[in-house]
């Protein structure tokens, strides 16, 4: 016969209970696993194909039926790297993305700080107004911006893109920094105040260290959005300040055997951002839905 101890085992960790919880009823596990994997692989297939093609020779790339097994080669990547205009465009992408991120953070952080810690009745309205500027279609500003850039001689310049990217992403950055500042419990700031901290010391010793994570993820999101930006990149710049988006768009009319190289170029262009994206899922949801989904 079981002892009392055996009949009522002491729960040594909460996970003991968790394991015994019945699974949710949406399809049995095996079916779900198979379904999820199939769908995921199907959806990922085009990217996977891009990845494979980058390592093929041009002949292999256009072979009919399409090749799945082949000996990989790095020749495409070598070619891409040695093309100076690829490097130029990549540089431009990097400059515009980083530039707009840093500029954006510099403008957004003080504003978000002010809204989080010096809240007034108007704060909410200001924040909503900022978000609404993001919702205006870019095409509505295309002509004026184009004309202004033309007049200022800034067409095909990196600066124009940096300004446009910064302003496009500013509302999202303010919003995300605002929420990360608000995540700091106000009592901690009150404690700092009681400990004798001035406003600046409060910021430097308490707010800043605690919001570094938020700033990083905001910056990451801005980087992703700027890098992938396609509307202004295609309209405001051309050869000199073109970004990778511009370069890749210029291949829209086929020029013979070039798919493998195009795949390699594309892969290089998207790989870092896709990987960043994997790490910034949560920020993406928060940033792009303006916090409407928790």
């Amino acid at each position, binding site marked *: 016969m079981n002892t009392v101890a055996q009949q009522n085992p002491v729960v040594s960790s909460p996970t003991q209970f968790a394991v015994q919880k019945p699974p949710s009823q*949406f399809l049995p596990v095996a079916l779900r696993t198979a379904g999820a994997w199939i769908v995921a692989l199907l959806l990922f297939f085009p990217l996977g194909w891009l990845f494979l093609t980058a390592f093929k020779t041009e002949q292999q790339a256009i072979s009919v039926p399409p090749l799945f097994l082949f000996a990989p080669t790095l020749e495409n990547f070598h070619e891409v790297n040695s093309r100076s205009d690829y490097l130029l465009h990549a540089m431009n992408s990097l400059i515009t993305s980083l530039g707009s991120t840093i500029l954006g953070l510099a403008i957004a952080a003080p504003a978000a700080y002010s809204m989080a810690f010096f*809240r007034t009745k108007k704060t909410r309205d200001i924040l909503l107004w900022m978000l609404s*500027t993001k919702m205006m*279609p870019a*095409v509505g500003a295309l002509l004026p911006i184009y004309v202004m850039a033309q007049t200022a001689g800034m067409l095909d310049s990196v600066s124009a893109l940096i300004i446009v990217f910064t302003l496009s992403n500013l509302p999202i950055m303010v919003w995300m920094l605002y929420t990360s500042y608000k995540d700091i419990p106000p009592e901690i700031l009150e404690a700092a105040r009681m400990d004798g901290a001035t406003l600046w010391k409060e910021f430097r010793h308490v707010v800043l260290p605690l919001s570094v994570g938020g700033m990083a993820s905001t910056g990451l999101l801005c980087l992703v959005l700027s890098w992938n930006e*396609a509307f202004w990149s295609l*309209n405001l710049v051309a050869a000199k300040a073109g970004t990778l988006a511009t370069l890749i*768009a210029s291949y829209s009319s086929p020029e013979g055997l070039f798919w493998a190289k195009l795949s390699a170029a594309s892969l290089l262009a998207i790989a870092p951002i*896709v990987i960043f994206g994997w790490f910034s899922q949560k920020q993406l949801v928060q940033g792009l839905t303006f916090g409407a989904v928790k």
Partner: protein
Amino acid sequence: MSSPSSSNTRLLPRALMAPAIGTLFLWMIVPLCMTIYFSLVNYNLMQPGEKTFAGLDNFTYFITDPDFWPAVWNTLVLIGSVIGITVVLGVLLGLLVNDPFPGRGIVRVLLISPFFVMPAVNALLWKHMMMNPNYGVLADLWRNFGLTPVDWLTDWPLLSVIIMVAWQWLPFACLIFITSLQSLDREQMEAARMDGSNAFQRFFYLTVPHLARPMAVVIMIEMIFLLSIFAEIFITTSGGPGNASTNMTFLIYKQSLMNFDVGVASAGALFAVIFANIVSFFLVRMVGKNLD
């Protein structure tokens, strides 16, 4: 939230907010005013200096452009289809992935990847790799079943664009719904199970209402971003054949940077702005409810 409120510190918050508010204000107002101004004058970039007042001529010209109504229709079809596909599939995928199973982390990573691909790459990827009638993967698939491959971009331009864009935005919807499903109250589900409900009932009475809000958000956000679909059309079909895959954004672009008719294009842009305003009004209200 307590804060010292001497007049000294009332200046500081305003100074901190000034750059952001100032620049955004300019960003919003200046183009808007200029667009309104341009829409009321005759202005063609090829004939600078000739800016005569045109009244509502630009608007009439824009609307009576033979491409106008097709563009409106295409825009609606494009937005509607992508939203429909992404929301429905997004919810189903969200449910599929919500509960743990082996490899869930990797599946999630695979599912969200398309969203981070540059639209330009997205466009070319589909145009050359998938949809090319000779060498594309889809062509091969069709041939495997003994069917003639479809020339997607020529015969089904709008559908092709829809597929590309939906592929890119499905992860977004998925992610939103996955996030939202995580916050579904498990205890509520368990109570329902004890009350004797089956899986379908729980889905319709508990899950769907819970998802109503994120669905609304997804629909509205997508409406705003999908209105501006440009790169995919620009790179693949150039709005064609004819105007079969031209949407409002592309039409305005055509007018402005291909015909260089700033006046007419501005008139068109105002239409887009008004439409976006209507949608964003509701979105802002919904977001506002979420802010404390």
